[in-house]
């Protein structure tokens, strides 16, 4: 790692940049424009977010608050838990623990820092990782391993049984840093009493672990507040998903990023509720005007990104879709399987319900919520089994009337790379044009964004997707 990279802590750098950006919105337009001159590496990303109006500003403020919490946790006597995006954070907020979520931290680095996260990615390899390990964790984890961030107190991950490379990153971090580790481990089935009982028992083990690590018992009132917030959020997310069904889709594509990053970082808090409410205001307005969420307000094609999105420098993926009138109708990360989600359809066992009659109910609600998180739900079993990836993708494509499906992943994703070819073939057999992209969503060095654009455009042209169509 270069010496200058060691000059500042990674989380502190993110925080100062985002905090200043967030503060700029409280001033005048002139002040904001002046600020842009001082953040040449972040201005395009910031603009991609801010041009969405209030929801963009709220997202920046949410990120700033989240990062402030991370930085200040030790000073405030709060514990920090290094955790993963597919772990729902409400239980941590109920314990007043600050979640340090690696993958969103990596994303922030890719779109804020001049050189992205390359040096932190590589530092993980210096520390012992294989270079083929997942970039989504390595991008930020390199800083934590190098001591360039607040040292986490313990680790929680819920990817064993779901994604080896993800789980491996956290178990590596635990061994390397010498800090306690708790894993939620999932069986390959989602429903049925065996799986449900396992989820419950494992989650109760987590609650006991949190009590031990924080030295406090679960505060039921605080828990109840978090659960109440979760309930609101699940209703709002369902409405968001419902609105995506409209042709043209009134949802700006980047709102999917807002939705899942907000949920990964601050799910169960009022900040996330405010973000959702603000996004919905915009989307409802677009829907009332029959306007698509793209820059022009028109829709040429409807795409479902069946795994993750692409996050490298300047958020160019989102700008590309917006400019080309392609509606982003979500990805695996934006499906949370909450009760009343339009995609849950006739699969009531696939969703989670928020119950709060008593403590047991509340704990079970959280256990179910975590077990339905993105990736945790859909890729735990054979991709062609009921309730799994193919089933879920086909449900989404039919419900959303998509024109195509595209797969982005990382080079570390053994689990999906192990099955994505037959999965894509099955989708094609169902009449859904499907594109597998060989890029790494977090590391431009694997394939440049320009090469990715070429492939997407070639695919759209060859398959005549959206040809001559505007809505």
């Amino acid at each position: 790692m270069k010496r200058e990279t060691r000059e500042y802590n990674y989380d502190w750098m993110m925080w100062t940049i985002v905090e200043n950006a967030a503060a700029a919105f409280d001033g005048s337009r002139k002040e904001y424009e002046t600020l842009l001159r001082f953040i040449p590496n972040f201005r395009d990303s910031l603009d991609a977010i801010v041009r969405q109006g209030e929801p963009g500003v709220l997202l920046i403020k949410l990120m700033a608050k989240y990062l402030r919490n991370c930085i200040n946790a030790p000073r405030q006597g709060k514990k920090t838990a290094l955790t993963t995006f597919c772990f729902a954070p409400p239980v941590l907020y109920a314990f007043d623990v600050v979640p340090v979520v690696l993958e969103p931290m990596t994303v922030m680095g890719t779109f804020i820092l001049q050189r992205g996260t390359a040096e932190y990615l590589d530092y993980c390899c210096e520390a012992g990782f294989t270079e083929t390990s997942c970039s989504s964790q390595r991008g930020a984890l390199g800083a934590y391993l190098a001591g360039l961030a607040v040292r986490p107190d313990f680790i929680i991950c819920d990817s064993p049984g779901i994604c080896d490379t993800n789980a491996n990153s956290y178990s590596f971090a635990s061994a390397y840093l010498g800090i306690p580790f708790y894993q939620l481990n999932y069986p390959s089935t989602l429903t049925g009493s065996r799986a449900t009982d396992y989820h419950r028992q494992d989650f109760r083990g987590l609650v006991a672990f949190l009590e031990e690590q924080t030295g406090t018992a679960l505060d039921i009132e605080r828990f109840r507040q978090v659960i109440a917030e979760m309930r609101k959020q699940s209703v709002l997310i369902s409405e968001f998903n419902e609105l995506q069904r409209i042709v043209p889709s009134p949802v700006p594509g980047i709102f999917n990023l807002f939705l899942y990053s907000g949920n990964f970082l601050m799910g169960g808090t009022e900040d996330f509720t405010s973000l959702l409410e603000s996004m919905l205001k915009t989307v409802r307005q677009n829907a009332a005007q029959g306007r698509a969420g793209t820059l022009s307000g028109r829709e040429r094609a409807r795409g479902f990104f069946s795994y993750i999105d692409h996050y490298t420098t300047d958020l160019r993926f989102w700008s590309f879709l917006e400019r080309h009138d392609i509606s982003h109708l979500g990805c695996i990360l934006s499906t949370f399987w909450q009760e009343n989600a339009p995609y849950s359809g006739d699969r009531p066992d696939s969703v989670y319900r928020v119950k709060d009659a008593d403590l047991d109910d509340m704990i079970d609600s959280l256990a179910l919520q975590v077990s339905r998180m993105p990736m945790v739900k859909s890729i735990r079993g054979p991709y062609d089994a009921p309730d799994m990836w193919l089933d879920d993708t086909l449900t989404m494509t039919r419900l959303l009337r998509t024109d195509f499906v595209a797969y982005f992943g990382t080079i570390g994703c053994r689990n999906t790379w192990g099955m994505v070819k037959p999965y894509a073939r099955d989708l094609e057999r169902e009449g859904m044009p499907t594109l597998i992209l060989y890029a790494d969503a977090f590391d431009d060095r694997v394939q440049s964004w320009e090469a990715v654009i070429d492939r997407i455009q070639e695919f759209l042209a060859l398959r005549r997707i959206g040809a001559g169509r505007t809505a």
Partner: protein
Amino acid sequence: MIGKLKEAASTLSNPYLKKWKEAGKAVIGYPCTFVPEEIIHAAGMLPYRLRGVGTTSLSIGDTYFGPVICSFPKCVLQLAGQESYRFLDGVIITNGCDSMRRLDECWRKAEEDIAGILPGYFRYFGVPHKTASYSFDWFEQEIRELIRSIEEHFGLQITDSALRKSIRLYNSSRRLLQRIDELRSGPEVRISGQDALAVVLAGSSMPRERYTSILEGLVKSLESAPGRAEGKNRLMLVGSASDDLDFIRLIEDSGAIVVADTLCFGARSYSDLTDEKDDPVSALSRRYLSNSLCPRMFGYYRNRLSHILDKAKKARVDGVILQNIRFCDLHGSENGIFERDLERRGIPCMRMEREYGPLVETGRIRMRLDAFMERIS
């Protein structure tokens, strides 16, 4: 005696297996040490560990698997697609790792294109990644369901008494393998690393009764065999699945002798025994799930480190080779921390990433081995 075992270890279909099939008996394949072989044995069938021996192309493996996947399951699929695994009556796939568990879909999907390559019995067997009490309960239930499905499919019964008999037999062969391990890691080193691996590998593809009787004779002959260690660096081999005898030969040709290992094709498969007194299914669930020596068991790094340190001390090793198959991040990354923690204790290490299968990288590996020998000599 070792010649017979080497022959069995070097080919997919060995004479013992052929004889077994000629007698009209069934063979069940499995890819990972977390599948209890005793269940298959108690059903009167031959448990056969899937391997990629003799693969010369990955044209089929690459068709179904993506590009960044471990070459071990790709080789297995390749052989299945080439109909080299026609002798299998069944296969049990397990989630040993993500690459391995997707063999389930890839094999099934390949069957759509190459009819007849999927055995009549094909089952996914889930193994938890932790050892909490409810994980043992879950695993025990999974074993009971496996038993039920084998009984249903093959129209037979797996009785408790048959299971107990199988457990005793497997324990006795594991004890013999442990004894061979002692002879291998002792001061004299009575058996080379290459031969020791061949002995273990043979056991995963031949009838256990015959295997055990061969082992008994082998132990006796090894006890008086001449030492092989003189002038050689004593090495330990750690990491990903490795069943390539030529790889060990290459190491030993460089002036070393492999006196210990923690490989799943090697010592990991016989390092512990099953309780013979307890309920057999419960005992099997404890024996197989407690084996946290594979990094798929997340959060047990300290156990694995102390296991390696213990072995390294007993075998008085001069160095450790930490190898992994490319894209095996579980072993590959953990090797990185092993390197840190072993070197800190004064044990020289060499990390090596390689492909599974026929040694196509001989030159590179030899050069690295030479450099390592120079360092530790």
